[in-house]
């Protein structure tokens, strides 16, 4: 018997009124169906303006939906009880700049009805976990964007939520920060929690997500496990080699030759893999990696959502 979904949205729609005199309706989200299962890391993807933030804001009640039904943790949306078990981090959060992180977390804790002892304890633990102990008493107006993001994460975790909803959690973070967020998300999953986050940083999604949904123009394009969405090309293998001039390799099985600095990326028919490997070694080169060709998320984006051929190896930001 499958556990009920942690989040279930059916037919979620929202239009904005645009213009001052003649008010037209601009649809931001049309008939969205979404399901997030317990214990998974769910990625919510899409280009700018596709409606990702709108969806999350609708879920949290910052925007009023035109149509649709939402259930969170098995409860109807209007029931305030589920909010005690959900944590939310908006994009580019603005927190009160006259408060210190400690005071802000204490305030949030009060809203959850935590006792003063619980608030102090949770606050201290979260600040430590997010590397903010040394600035716990500094007013937030002096914080950099990255540090503000961390405080934002802390406030989302004050109530130890079952479901964590994050809007672009990696945005504006340096690599250290991003690693921190990544680890945090994985920690949540390890603890049996569920994480839903929106992002346009595709390698992060690839690295973390169990399932994803892709949004375009306010409509759901596709949803499911990554492996299902990103097509696998089983007929060819991808080969990384170095130390040779592969331009000189003559083999009809090599479909694509790509120079990446000192390395070469070759796409090879699967049944001829062995022969090509031997040819490379014979030419004095080394094999660095062999793997099936999987369409990257970026490729998917470009292909499905418009754009040129696949980019070079290595993630875009």
């Amino acid at each position, binding site marked *: 018997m499958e556990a009920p979904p942690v989040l279930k949205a059916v037919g979620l729609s929202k239009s904005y009124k645009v213009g001052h005199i003649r008010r037209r309706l601009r649809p931001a989200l049309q008939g969205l169906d979404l399901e997030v299962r317990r214990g998974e890391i769910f990625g919510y993807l899409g280009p700018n303006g596709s409606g990702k933030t709108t969806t999350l*804001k609708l879920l*949290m009640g*910052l925007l*009023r939906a035109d149509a649709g039904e939402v259930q969170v943790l098995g409860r109807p949306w209007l029931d305030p009880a589920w909010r005690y078990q959900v944590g939310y981090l908006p994009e580019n959060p603005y927190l*009160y700049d*006259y408060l210190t992180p400690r005071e802000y977390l204490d305030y949030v804790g*009060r*809203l*959850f*009805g935590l006792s003063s002892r619980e608030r102090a304890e949770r606050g201290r633990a979260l600040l430590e976990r997010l590397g903010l102990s040394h600035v716990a008493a500094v007013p937030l107006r002096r914080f950099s964007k990255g540090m503000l993001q961390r405080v934002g994460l802390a406030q989302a975790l004050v109530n130890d939520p079952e479901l964590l909803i994050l809007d672009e959690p990696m945005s504006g973070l340096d690599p250290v920060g991003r690693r921190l967020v990544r680890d945090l998300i994985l920690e949540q999953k390890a603890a049996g929690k569920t994480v839903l986050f929106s992002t346009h940083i595709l390698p992060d999604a690839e690295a973390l997500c169990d399932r994803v949904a892709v949004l375009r123009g306010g409509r759901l394009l596709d949803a499911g496990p990554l492996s299902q969405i990103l097509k696998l090309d089983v007929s060819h293998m991808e080969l990384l080699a170095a130390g040779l001039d592969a331009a000189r390799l003559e083999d009809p099985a090599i479909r694509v030759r790509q120079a990446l600095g000192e390395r070469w990326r070759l796409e090879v028919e699967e049944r001829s893999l062995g022969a090509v490997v031997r040819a490379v070694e014979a030419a004095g080169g080394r094999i660095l990696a062999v793997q099936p060709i999987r369409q990257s998320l970026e490729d998917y984006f470009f292909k499905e959502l418009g754009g040129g051929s696949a980019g070079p190896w290595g993630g875009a930001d």
Partner: protein
Amino acid sequence: MGRGRLSRILAVAANTFRETVRERVLYNLVFFALLMTLSGLLLAQLSIRQDEKIIKDLGLAAMDLFGSMIALFIGVSLVSKEIERRSLHPLLAKPLGRDEFFLGKFFGLAFTLFVNTSAMAAGLFLTLLATGRSANLGLVGAIYTIFLSLLLVVALAMLLSSVTSPALSAIGTLGLVIVGRFSDVIRNMREVVPGAPDWLVKILYYAIPNFRNFDFKEQAAYGDPIPLSALGQVTLYAAFYVGLALAAGLASFRSRDFE
């Protein structure tokens, strides 16, 4: 659940108070109010036999003027700013109702005004003491009604802030406060504009907040007793109008989108 509601409202109120306490503009305004009151000591020297009246007049005028400015400023900035800067986004995701947030803000601002008014009143009493006079009950009554008028200003500012931008809500509130002081002119509009239809005059008069109701400065200056019934009536008017403004503001706040 009722107790949870109250504690959340109080949490918002306490945080709002903390925000105003850390707002420097407030201190400047209170400082100027106290300065104005103290200058009464100087001005009294320039006149004949007027020191007590001048000090009271100046002190009450300062409280009214600067108090209104403070109420306008905090009422507009503390709600508009929240909406514009989106600082309430993470908060509304919590189990915090929109009405709890709105009311909590109001109570926080009301408490701030109470503290400010008390500080200015203390300044006035001390200034009077310096000339050997003491405060009388009438003075306290006049201060109380000024405080009520400040609550109304804040409520109006909050209503307008939840509907429109900070600049427009500031101008709108200021406009209402100024026009509200001319309530008697509106009521007698037909002396100046004979063609004005009676129903229009009535509607305008009752709709616009009548700030003259709160003016007991003359009684305080001349030591007239202020009957408790008058204070009671003014309190009722203030309570109803404040309630009206808050209810309207809440209605708007509850149903709007926060983008």
